[in-house]
């Protein structure tokens, strides 16, 4: 169950070009699972920015002096993220979370491949821990445009059986996209399930590769959100249900994690003609 709490910034540290914020948020860490996100109010009491900003939960601490904290990785993209990056220690932050549906976890000790693009890596660390607790093999691929847009290579090295890095410009790791290295790794590690978080085109491509390899694939999508709690219908995308019917599902409550093979990647930003309730359809 998500809660709304007035938290406080305990500290900010830089990781690459990201700002990792540690925020007290009693009630949030307890319920947080890998893949959950938080929605933060930005700009203060007299802000012209009305909408909350969504951030994957990167890590949590359950107890301690501050009674539970949440870590998020903020990449500065616009005024809201800029405001968060500029906060001082002890400034208040209004937190709603944990939100969304987390990654589905395997019951068996399978071989898992975690793929993160940019700050999409953020939720994979809690996931890796959880998977290893379950005896899974965990391999990690991190990709980004440039070295400084890679998130937390250090921790990734520690938690993964193997870590592969790609950058578009080759500033570190393999020059290219994560999808360039995926086939080889999936073959080598006999991947049973791929967990991916990052830009939508990356998720589409990863899904395609995972499917052709015969692996399950879980993707954490990123759609623009107005409410983050399921009441506004802003954040929808076409998802095929168990009954084979495509519906416009809310990524904030029905996601952000979906089975990759259920998302109509080619039809994002459209209403597919065969979608439930589509114009002209007789549903």
């Amino acid at each position, binding site marked *: *169950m*998500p809660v*709304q709490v007035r938290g406080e910034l305990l500290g900010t540290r830089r990781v690459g070009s990201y700002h990792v914020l540690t925020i007290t948020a009693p009630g949030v860490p307890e319920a947080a699972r890998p893949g959950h996100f938080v929605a933060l*109010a930005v700009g203060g009491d007299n802000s*012209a*920015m*009305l*909408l*909350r900003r969504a951030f994957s939960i990167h890590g949590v601490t359950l107890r301690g002096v501050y009674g539970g904290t949440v870590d998020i990785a903020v990449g500065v993209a616009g005024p809201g993220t800029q405001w968060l990056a500029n906060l001082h220690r002890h400034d208040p932050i*209004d937190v*709603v979370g944990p939100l969304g549906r987390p990654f589905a976890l395997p019951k068996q000790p399978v071989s898992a491949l975690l793929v993160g693009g940019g700050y999409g890596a953020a939720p994979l660390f809690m996931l890796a821990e959880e998977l290893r607790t379950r005896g899974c093999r965990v391999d990690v691929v991190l990709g980004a445009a440039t070295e400084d847009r890679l998130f937390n290579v250090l921790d990734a090295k520690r938690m993964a059986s193997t870590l592969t890095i790609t950058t578009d410009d080759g500033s570190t790791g393999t020059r290219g996209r994560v999808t360039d290295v995926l086939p080889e790794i999936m073959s080598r590690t006999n991947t049973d399930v791929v967990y991916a978080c990052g830009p939508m085109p990356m998720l589409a491509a990863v899904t395609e590769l995972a499917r052709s390899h015969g692996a399950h694939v879980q993707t954490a999508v990123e*759609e*623009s959100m*107005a*409410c*983050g*709690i*399921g*009441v*506004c*219908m*802003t*954040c*929808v*995308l076409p998802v095929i249900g168990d009954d084979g019917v495509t*519906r*416009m599902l809310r990524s904030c*409550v029905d996601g952000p994690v979906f089975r990759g093979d259920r998302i109509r990647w080619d039809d*994002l*930003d*459209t*209403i597919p003609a065969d*979608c*439930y*309730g*589509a*114009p002209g*359809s007789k*549903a």
Partner: protein
Amino acid sequence: MTRAVISYGPIPVEQLGHDVDMTAELGGTWLPNPVLTASGCAASGRELDTFFDITKIGALVTKSIMLAPRSGRPTPRMAETPSGMLNSIGLQGPGIDGFIEHDLAWLRERGVRTVVSIAGSNADEYTKLAQKLRNVPEIVAIEVNISCPNVENKGLIFARDPASAAAVITNVRRNTPSDIPVIAKLSPDVTDIVEIARACVRAGADGLALINTLLGLVIDTTTMRPQLAGITGGLSGPAIRPVAVRCVWEVHQALPEVPILGMGGIRNGVDALQFILAGASAVSVGTATFNDPAAPARVLSELRHELALRGFERLTDAVGHAHRGADVEPEPELGAEHHSGPVPRWP
């Protein structure tokens, strides 16, 4: 669940356990308090119930429901704007049958006072919607969203044409049990909102909801195209509050007997108080819920506090209060020799 949770008469102050009687009247129905959600900003209640007890607010207003299931518009569906947002959801929803079976059933079981918002593409669809709802128990009121394009009138929004607006309201009123108020929800995008209000009241509306969103557009300067897939969208949030309060003021001035459900940018109790003083009998909290999921409950307690501070014993005493008092008429703008007709307004 019995009807007991829904109040049909004024609630005695003592039972409320506080000093301001918050009982609100909305077109003949009494609510224990005047704070409602806004259509489309609370889905069908379930999600908000995690953040506050939705049985405690005045009523829950559902997302506008149409006859058939609808997938809505393609994304992007929203753009943030200064102190507001633009949306173009396109009334995604399950259609009236699924809505009655699932959403309304849940709301009834949960004991939530529910205002059902309906929307159609032509006047006949509204008739059918009202007919579908007439045997559904425990609806507090029907809010008629007429800010929809009328496919039988070149796509002109019903709420922008007095005759089309009236036709819809007539149909809904005729097909709705007489003890259930029909509330017409108006658009501010008109030359004369009082004219539309009058047409709806003549057609049988028991109350008016003011205002729906303002038509707006944002250009995404990266793609250099409109940011919304739907090109235009509805502007909501604190940015539009002065326009909303003005609409409430104008309509209450012209039709003081007609109950108004005021909305548009309400974020706190003082904002809500503005609407009440301008003439609203109750208020809806919409976009603010996206910022603060508990906003409706918070606004309610803040409004109560603000009323108490100002010495009001009853909410109803505050309704339209800003119209009273000798000194509220503006100084005549032009020399008396020029002056005729209503007081002119200068920019």
